[in-house]
Structures are given as structure tokens and as C-alpha cells.
């Protein structure tokens, strides 16, 4: 009895699925879905070679400092990194005094511990980077987690920064020009690495020497884009080095323990034939 019910229920769902499939297939053949402009023009971010990549990846502190400088002088005008505290900058190789100097350059709004009054004061290492008031078009996202919040991570940031193109002359891999309806509107800029192709942010890194590096590295557009991408990988994953180190030790221990456990397993079962 239960099996008759079962077969009836199975037939019910199967017929519904056949009908759905038939309808779908019919419209698929009669009106094949046209590829959207996004599907034709959107590019996957390119892979970015960073020292933090891979299972044993580590940060290059000099690169992070350079990236921090690019962030401070270019990105910070619109984008905050509110999850990062000034004290975290020690991981970039700055000492206590340098961190204090950096923090003091920022104004944070906080309670005065003596009066309880909320007012502006210079930052201290315990503060987090303040939010940025932005009055223009669009909503600049906080960048603390941006490399974890996009497919491609640091590669996405790098591709976006270096991927701006002239919409009038741009051709995709198939040689197609950007359709009129996808041309950037007023105050928008074309970038094939951006999900819907046009964004409110104009190309932020445009000319060589836009930032003067303290370590004498030549500040090409490519170099600055790469460094700031590396910095934003760090803001998203400040624990990465500790994670990789701990992981290596832990995996080593586990491997040792597993081999021991396997040998004792073989030993225990040695008297059982057929195993």
C-alpha cells in the first residue's frame, strides 16, 4: 500500500518536472536567452602574485608600508578601513612612536574620559581608523574586508585599479564594442572588472609618481596598484601569518599523531586474519 502511494507521489512530482522542463525547453529553443552585456563584457579578475599567497605565504612588510601610503594618500579620501585599529599597524613594521604619530594625524570622535562629553580629538593607537564622510555620488564601501568580499581577492582590487578603459573605443575579447545602453552615464566610469561595468569611482591611480615612496621604490601605476592591493589583503586578513605558522606546526603534529595512530591500529588488528 505504502509503495502504491509512493509511486503516485513520485509520478505527481515527475509530471510537474516534465511539464516545467518542457515549458523551459520550448522557450529556450523558440526564444534563446540573449547574453546580457554584463555576461559579454564583465571580466574575471586576474590573478595577482603576492607574497602572502599560498600555504606558506607571508606579508612583505615593506610592500604593506608602501600600500598603506597609497591608501592614506589616495583611497582614504573616500574609503574608510574602520575594522583596523592604529595599533594593528605595528604588524607593518612600524614602532610604537611611529604608530602614535600616524594615529595623531587622524581625528576621532570619542567620549572624553573625564567629562563624558563626546568630542573630536587626535587619534591614539587604541582607536580604530575613523569613518570617512563622503558627500559625492555613490557609496564608497569600507575597504577593511574588500579583498574577502569580492571573488578574486587582492587580484580583484588590482584588476579594478588598472582596468579602467575608454568606453568609446573598448572592444571585448570577441571584438564587440560596448553597446550604447551600457555606456557609462553621467558621473560613471567604465571598468570591465566591475560587476555591472560602470562605477562611480573614477580611476584613482592615474599617473606615475602620484605617491612618493619612502623606500625609493619607483611609484609606477602598476606598482602602486599592486602595493595597495597587498595592503588591503592585510586589512582583511591581519591574522594570515599567524594562521599559516600555526597551521604548519599543527599539521606537522597531526601528521605525526596520525602515523602513530595508524601504526597502533595495524598493531591492534595484526592478529585478525583477513584484514
Amino acid at each position: 500500500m505504502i509503495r502504491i502511494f509512493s509511486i503516485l507521489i513520485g509520478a505527481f512530482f515527475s509530471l510537474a518536472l516534465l511539464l516545467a522542463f518542457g515549458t523551459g525547453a520550448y522557450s529556450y529553443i523558440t526564444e534563446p536567452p540573449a547574453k546580457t552585456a554584463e555576461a559579454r563584457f564583465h571580466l574575471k579578475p586576474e590573478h595577482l602574485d603576492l607574497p602572502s599567497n599560498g600555504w606558506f605565504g607571508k606579508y612583505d612588510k615593506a610592500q604593506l608600508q608602501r600600500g598603506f601610503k597609497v591608501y592614506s594618500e589616495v583611497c582614504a579620501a573616500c574609503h574608510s578601513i574602520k575594522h583596523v585599529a592604529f595599533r594593528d599597524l605595528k604588524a607593518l613594521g612600524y614602532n610604537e612612536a611611529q604608530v602614535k604619530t600616524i594615529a595623531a594625524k587622524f581625528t576621532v570622535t570619542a567620549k572624553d574620559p573625564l567629562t563624558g562629553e563626546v568630542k573630536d580629538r587626535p587619534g591614539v593607537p587604541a582607536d580604530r581608523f575613523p569613518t570617512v564622510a563622503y558627500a559625492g555620488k555613490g557609496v564608497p564601501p569600507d575597504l577593511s574586508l574588500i579583498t574577502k568580499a569580492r571573488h578574486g581577492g587582492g587580484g580583484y582590487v588590482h584588476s579594478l585599479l588598472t582596468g579602467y578603459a575608454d568606453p568609446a573605443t573598448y572592444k571585448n575579447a570577441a571584438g564587440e564594442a560596448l553597446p550604447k545602453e551600457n555606456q557609462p552615464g553621467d558621473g560613471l566610469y567604465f571598468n570591465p572588472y566591475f560587476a555591472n561595468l560602470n562605477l562611480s569611482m573614477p580611476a584613482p591611480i592615474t599617473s606615475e609618481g602620484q605617491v612618493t615612496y619612502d623606500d625609493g621604490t619607483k611609484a609606477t601605476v602598476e606598482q602602486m596598484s599592486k602595493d595597495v592591493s597587498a595592503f588591503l589583503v592585510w586589512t582583511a586578513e591581519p591574522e594570515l601569518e599567524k594562521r599559516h605558522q600555526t597551521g604548519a606546526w599543527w599539521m606537522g603534529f597531526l601528521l605525526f599523531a596520525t602515523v602513530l595512530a595508524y601504526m597502533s591500529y595495524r598493531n591492534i588488528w595484526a592478529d585478525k586474519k583477513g584484514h
Partner: protein
Amino acid sequence: MSFPWSKEYTPSHPLMVWLDEKLPLPRLVYGAVGGGYEVPRNLNYMWNFGFLAGLCLMIQIVTGVVLAMHYGGDTKVAFDSTEHIMRDVNWGWMLRYGHANGASAFFVVVYAHIFRGFYYGSYKAPREMIWLLGVVIFLLMMATAFMGYVLPWGQMSFWGAQVITGLFSAIPLVGDPLREWLLGGFSPDNATLNRFFSLHFLLPFVILGVVILHVWALHIPGSSNPTGVEVKSESDTVPFFPYFVGKDGWTIGLFMLIYSAFVFFMPNALGHPDNYIPANPMQTPAHIVPEWYFWPFYAILRAFTVDFLIVPAKLMGVLAMFAAILVWFFLPWLDRSPVRSANYRPLYRKFFWVLVLDVAVLAYCGGAPAEEPFVMISQIASLYYFLHFFVIVPVVSSIERPDPLPYSITEAVLGTDESAKLDGNG
């Protein structure tokens, strides 16, 4: 469980004698996972996943309880408190990555455990109750995992909650009020997050309770085994300790190696980037997808694109998604074949492997955007899924001619069984 040859617990130390009279805990341990529990000697590695599932539950409870000490279940602070855990709490990143990847590991292990059951007919008499409790555990796990994913209050958290609670609005008449009652509002908000946090903390302990029943029910008939032939004599079994403690022990190491590789070296490989964007009710993500372990069922939900008879498409999808799991409750009575193991069921075995492939295809389609050709593929794959459980399993079990079974487990392992010869009809 006790076979005639199972050893009775006999305390020798006066303290243990005293304890055995007052609270026979050592007796319980000895009989449940010790030298007094006889287990078929031929269990293969597919029988390790139950123990591993228990380990996963423990990992989730321990990491989860500590995470809850630092998490704030309020929409204003949930996302930031998660980042506080990642950045400021000592080893917080390890707890959180361990918990998030622990959920995935739990589902990997449980899916292996369930498919072991499908292949070896573990659900058949006398083990129906173990199976039924197992399906209850799986349903509780799905509810717990879903609510846990909402807690970081990222974009996928919010929109996942929106979509899944939206399913209830497909129910005729009471759908909309029911959804509002579940959410505590008209869309996911603080009330939703708060109750999900509360339930996400509660349900693992409910799971633990059902797991205890599951293991208790297991100890009545004892484990099934790859031949599906019941235990006949002492030579068919070995005591759980040390034999299976040793075997489970080393596979724990193997499991931990793979799990740790994810936690320490690719912690976000199984997650979705959008959940690192704070929840924004005003902006719908391009593709709303659940975590990978829900993909097969998500594909079934989305496969029903047209109204059928008087049932709207959305309701069909919801019914189908629930039916896809609820049918497992009836499996012991749908599959009437007296032979348990697919090793001796040539026809069923073929359909089993088609099912494995089918669920993999469903999973792929469930993770893909709701576009053609994925929708059509998931319609065909869903069709097979329903045919498999509702039609093929009952029909095959009636018409199939199984291969000859070994006389006993001993014969299957050693090639010969002395007691079979004495029997005269082996």
C-alpha cells in the same frame, strides 16, 4: 547489546565495585564503547563516519559556545562583533574559521554516513529506528546550519533568511502570517537575528540528545556490516575496544588533517564573498545562494518553474524540497528487498551510483545562477531524484534477483567458516 559471548563488566578494584553499585557509569562505557561491545569484524572505512560525525558535533559545540561569549546578537553589532572575534579575540580567527569550516566538515561526514546507509541498506529491519532518528538529526542539522549562517549578518545571511523564510509564505492561507510570526516582523530584522541566535545555541543540544537516542538504538541490534548478513557467532565479531577504538582513532587523525587544511590554509574556500559585506536590506545580491551543503535541495526547490494542476510553482518547489528529505523516513518500508547490502544487489547498485551522480549534478546546479541551461539540467536531475526514491527503489526491490550471500561474516572475511560446515548446509 549483548550477544551470548559479550563480556560482562566485572569491576575488580574496590572503588570500582563501590561505584558500580551506586552509579554504573564504567559499566555503561564498557558495554557501549569498550571491551563488552561486540562489533562485526568486517566493517570497512564507510563505518567510520558515525564516529567522525560525533566528533564534528563536539567541535561545533565547543567552538560555538566560546564564539557566543564574544558575539553580539543584535543587527547593529552582529557584523562588527564577528570582525571583533576575527581581529581582537585571542585565537578568535581560529574559533570562527574552525566553526564555519566545521559546519562544512560535519555535512561532508554526515552525507557520507547517509549514503553509506543507502548503499548498504542500513535502514532495514531491525535498524529502522536508528535510521528514523538519523533523518531527524539531519533535519535539525539543516535548521541549525541555516540559522548559524544568518548570525554574521552579512549580505548572504540576510538574503538567505529572506529567501528561506519566504518559502513558508507559499503555504496557502496561513503562509504570510506564518512567515511574519517566524521572522517577528515583515522582513528579517533584529527580532529575527535574536531568535535565530537563541535557537542556534539551543538546537545543537537537541541534536546531541537525538544522537544519544540514535546511538542507543544502534546498540540494540548492533552495527550492520558490508555483507548485510547478521552476526551469527563469536568469530564474526571483535570487541569495540581495542579494535574499533584503534580504527576510529587513526581516521580521526586523517579527518583532522583535511579539516585543518581548510581552517588554516583556505578558510574561505567554501564560503561566499558576499557574506563579508554587511547586510543591506536595500540591495539584493546578484545571486542568492546558500552554503554548498544545501545546494542539491536548493536546485530541487528552483526546478519547479511552472504551476501544476492547482498548485502554484513556488508551493510545488517547497513541497518537493521537503518531500526530497521526508521520503527518507519511509525508506525502510519502500525498499522491500530482504538483502541489505548493494554488494549483492546488482540492479540496485547501478541505480545507487546514478543517484550519487544525480545528487552531484543537483549540487552543481544549486550553486549555479538560476539561468538556462542550469534550470533545465536541475529539472532532469530532480526528476531522477524523485523517480529513484519514490518509484525505482520500491520496484527494483520487488523484481531484482540478488546475488548469493556469504553464509556468515566469518566466511566473507576468511573464505571459510567452520560453523557453516558443522551446520551441513552452508
